């Protein structure tokens, strides 16, 4: 293999360093200047737990990388200026049209730069995937209770990242200054103007004067490529560092406890899986971008306050805000004290801000209710936290209704309904949907808990029907193997808070409140399983299964005996029957000669 070398490598034990002389020398060079060997030792074989739902955050992470890469390419060609120019590129329907340099450069990227349209589409599709990835990741973290101590701060950081991502998306698609995004800016301007006290001046400051002005695209560009990404990258780094320090949560399973991590090491398995997933995410996005149009700004043309397109919607992640505006009934505005109070704008804004705030502070609410100050590193199955899951479902329905409302006109045309009917239905659903969803989800979660308990104690229904000697039919329940069974056992149960009077004999109002809320949270629950119960159930199961096995063996022995007496082939249990059957011709003859029924086999 390798021979001894004359260079002064740090280790004299091996003949050649790992990876060869060059790699060894390079590693030495760097380590002598950066202490990197410490990091490698600490993190190189770090264990990560394995579950598909733990990779949802990576969808967001890798699509963000794609957004950064494609966006950087675009910055070399895009001009974020509203200076008026006339288009003279390849697209005939825009030729000679007056437009801003922003739209002009976007059209040039699309039609007169090889790969330009591809990269534009990669960038925009990746942005949609990015925000969607954050959404599914956030839902996973919520429904598994992975936001509990010590990860509350990471939840808040992640939440801020979500808002930043939406901001990035909005500023990004407004850059080309086309009709669709321009109308979106018009709507934002109208909303800002409706804010009491500061609205008019805020709009004036934002647009640098009257709407639309000639400053907004440049300012959004500064936000989009400098400020927002910088904050985003910094918070993302913090988010990941916290995840490394806290280590990832894991689902309950064999050998998994609250004090360990069970899984595969970073090098080589996770590095390969994460790296592979990066390439797959990138590849899927590029595949979609090669085949499907997104944001065809050439159809929209330059922003002008006069034209508008049917089907004017923002990108999907802003849809919930647009939908909130659409669901407000008419007339919610009045003049009082010489000022206009636009509740048709204030109410949606307040509702959305409250909703967002509730999501952001949820971990602290739950921590206050449970008073549990221990660290939690086991991810809960959603069914085992029934009230939290039900709250989450209610929140999702609320969000989804607002989101659906943004496409109310398209729902009307595509399902041949009236837009008024769609809007009224969604108004109704906005209020009642979360309530109904809450109750249904909670009941389903509790039912699933009961089913799990059933399976743990009594086994699963195997589909094998047995007829007992007395004539009754039963379905045999097979026990689940001990490793899978462990996953079905819920280790964490809480009970409602029972307040006690203090020294003065009173119960403060906030303790009463906590008691009431904790009752709501934890009243419907299953009592925790004890090992004794499990052992007893095990014993009982084995007993009845053994009993059945005995009966079965007795039946088969009897049948075999009768077969042997008749001279028919004997089938040993578990073996295939091998016998010589008569040929079809012979069987036919037997049938035709009608010798009567053959003896019962």
């Amino acid at each position, binding site marked *: 293999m390798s021979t001894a070398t004359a260079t002064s490598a740090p280790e004299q034990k091996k003949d050649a360093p790992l990876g060869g002389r060059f790699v060894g020398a390079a590693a030495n060079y760097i380590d002598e200047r950066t202490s990197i060997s410490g990091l490698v030792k600490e993190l190189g074989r770090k264990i990560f737990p394995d579950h598909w739902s733990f990779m949802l955050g990576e969808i967001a992470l890798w699509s963000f990388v794609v957004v950064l890469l494609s966006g950087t390419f675009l910055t070399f060609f895009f001009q974020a200026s509203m200076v*008026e120019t006339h288009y003279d590129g*390849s697209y005939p329907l825009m030729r000679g049209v007056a437009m801003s340099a922003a739209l002009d450069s976007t059209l040039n990227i699309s*039609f007169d730069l*090889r*790969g330009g349209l591809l990269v534009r*589409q990669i960038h925009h599709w990746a942005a949609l995937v990015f925000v969607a990835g954050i959404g599914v990741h956030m839902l996973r973290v919520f429904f598994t209770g992975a936001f509990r101590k010590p990860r509350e701060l990471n939840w808040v950081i992640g939440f801020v990242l979500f808002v930043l991502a939406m901001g990035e998306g909005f500023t990004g698609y407004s850059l080309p200054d086309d009709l669709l995004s321009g*109308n979106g800016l018009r*709507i934002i301007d109208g909303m800002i*103007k*409706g804010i009491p006290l500061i*609205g*008019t001046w805020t*709009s004036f400051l*934002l647009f*640098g*004067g*009257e*709407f*639309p002005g*000639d400053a907004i695209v440049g300012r959004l560009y500064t936000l989009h490529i400098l400020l927002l990404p910088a904050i985003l990258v910094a918070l993302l780094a913090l988010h990941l560092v916290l995840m490394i*320090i806290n280590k990832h949560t894991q689902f309950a399973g064999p050998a998994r406890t*609250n004090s*360990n*991590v069970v*899984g595969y090491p970073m090098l080589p*398995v996770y590095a*390969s899986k994460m790296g*592979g997933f990066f*390439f*797959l995410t*990138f590849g899927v996005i*590029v595949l979609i971008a*090669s085949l499907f149009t997104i944001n065809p700004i050439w159809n929209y043309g330059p922003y*002008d*306050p*006069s*034209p*508008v397109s049917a089907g*004017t919607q923002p990108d999907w992640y802003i849809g919930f805000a647009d939908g909130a*505006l659409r669901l*407000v009934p008419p007339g919610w505005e009045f003049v009082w004290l010489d*000022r*206009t109070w636009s509740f*048709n*704008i204030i109410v949606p804004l307040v509702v959305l801000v409250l909703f967002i705030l509730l999501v952001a502070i949820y971990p602290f609410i739950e921590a206050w209710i*449970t008073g*549990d100050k*221990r*660290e939690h590193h086991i991810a809960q199955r959603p069914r085992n936290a029934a009230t939290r899951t039900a709250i989450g479902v209610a929140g999702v329905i609320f969000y989804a209704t607002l989101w659906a409302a943004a496409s*109310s006109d398209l729902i009307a045309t595509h399902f041949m309904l009236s837009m008024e009917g769609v*809007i009224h239905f969604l108004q109704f659903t906005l209020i009642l949907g979360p309530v109904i969803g809450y109750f249904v989800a909670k009941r389903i979660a509790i039912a699933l808990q009961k089913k799990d308990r059933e399976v743990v104690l009594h086994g699963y229904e195997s589909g094998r029907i047995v007829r007992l000697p007395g004539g009754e039919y039963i379905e045999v329940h097979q026990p689940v193997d001990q*490793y899978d069974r*462990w996953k079905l*056992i819920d280790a964490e*149960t809480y*009970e409602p808070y029972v307040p006690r009077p203090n020294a003065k004999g009173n119960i403060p109002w906030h303790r009463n409140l906590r008691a009431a809320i904790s009752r709501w949270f934890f009243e419907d629950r299953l009592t925790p*399983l*004890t*090992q*004794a119960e499990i052992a007893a159930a095990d014993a009982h199961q084995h007993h009845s299964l053994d009993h059945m096995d005995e009966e079965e063996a007795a039946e088969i022995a009897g049948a075999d005996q009768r077969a042997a007496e008749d001279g028919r082939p004997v089938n040993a249990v578990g073996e295939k029957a091998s016998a010589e059957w008569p040929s079809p011709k012979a069987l036919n003859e037997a049938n035709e000669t009608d010798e009567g029924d053959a003896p019962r086999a």
Partner: protein
Amino acid sequence: MAHDVDPLEHERASWKPSSGLAVEVSDPAVNPGLPPHRERITDKDPAAMQRAVRTVYTLFYLSVAASIWAVVAYMVFPLDGTLAAVHNNSMFVGLGIAFALLAIGIGAIHWSKAVMSDKEYIEPRHATRGRDTTREGAIAVFEAANEESGFGRRAMIRNSLIAAVVASVIPGITLFRGLAPEGENPVELLEHTMWKKGMRLALDPTGRPIKASEVTLGSAFHVIPEELAKLSHHEGYLEEKAKAIVLLMRLPQEDLIEAEDRKSWSYDGIVAYSKVCTHVGCPVALYEQLTHHLLCPCHQSQFDVADGAKVIFGPAARPLPQLPITVDDEGYLVAQSDFTEPVGPSFWERH
């Protein structure tokens, strides 16, 4: 928790966090421990392992081929001014890149699943909370710093420092006043549009003035002030247009319900309304000829042209402002004055 074998018990000796409302189970279920390792086909059968390895590097080499294809496509599908060329270039380069990336990804995953060891490891967690000794050390750091600087007891220094740092930020924030132009009052700007007495109604975007006789029943004309068409972008074309756009329609006179003081604002059944939605400012451009309803496509506010453009559905709260019109002596439609109220979305100072 009681039976949990906690290897880090010693680290947590002094730290017993409250478990709050958690139920303590005296005899909890016992963790069965790691199941025995189940061998994969590639572990049992060396030929299968070889096949897996071959699959992995074949995928990687295919990826190289796809990348080369992407570069070839870049050259072989140039742009020639037609849309078809753009489509071909975009699609073939994109597919090449996509397959190159997907092949690397699939190869890497297959490598990690089928070839790399799938032995599970157990790693203990450390308590996130620092050890007591560490925390005491941290406190000692601050104590020493406090002692040496007097930060704690020298209230004057401390408070004035905080005040100074906070104050130092304010000038920077003040600079951002420059985002908006000086000497312009947004409320005044919002209260007036370009329309003036005698200004002709003209077609958008050409600026050709419109005669009353041209507006037949069932028409919808998209209107701007005649002067607007002469403005250039840096003279404020879009800013004026954003307030001045008007929709001109003709209804049978008998269908029009008009307030007493507005009877003179229409001309022979021809009415002109601001096209800027009073909700949040989109152009209310959808005119339904038979129902004489105006629909805004953004949030579905609806206005009844026959009845003062009042709101009949949707989140808008105010009717569209009406432009008083008449004809001049050549028969062209002209404005009698500016709008009598601010157009467009509501704002705080509007009354």
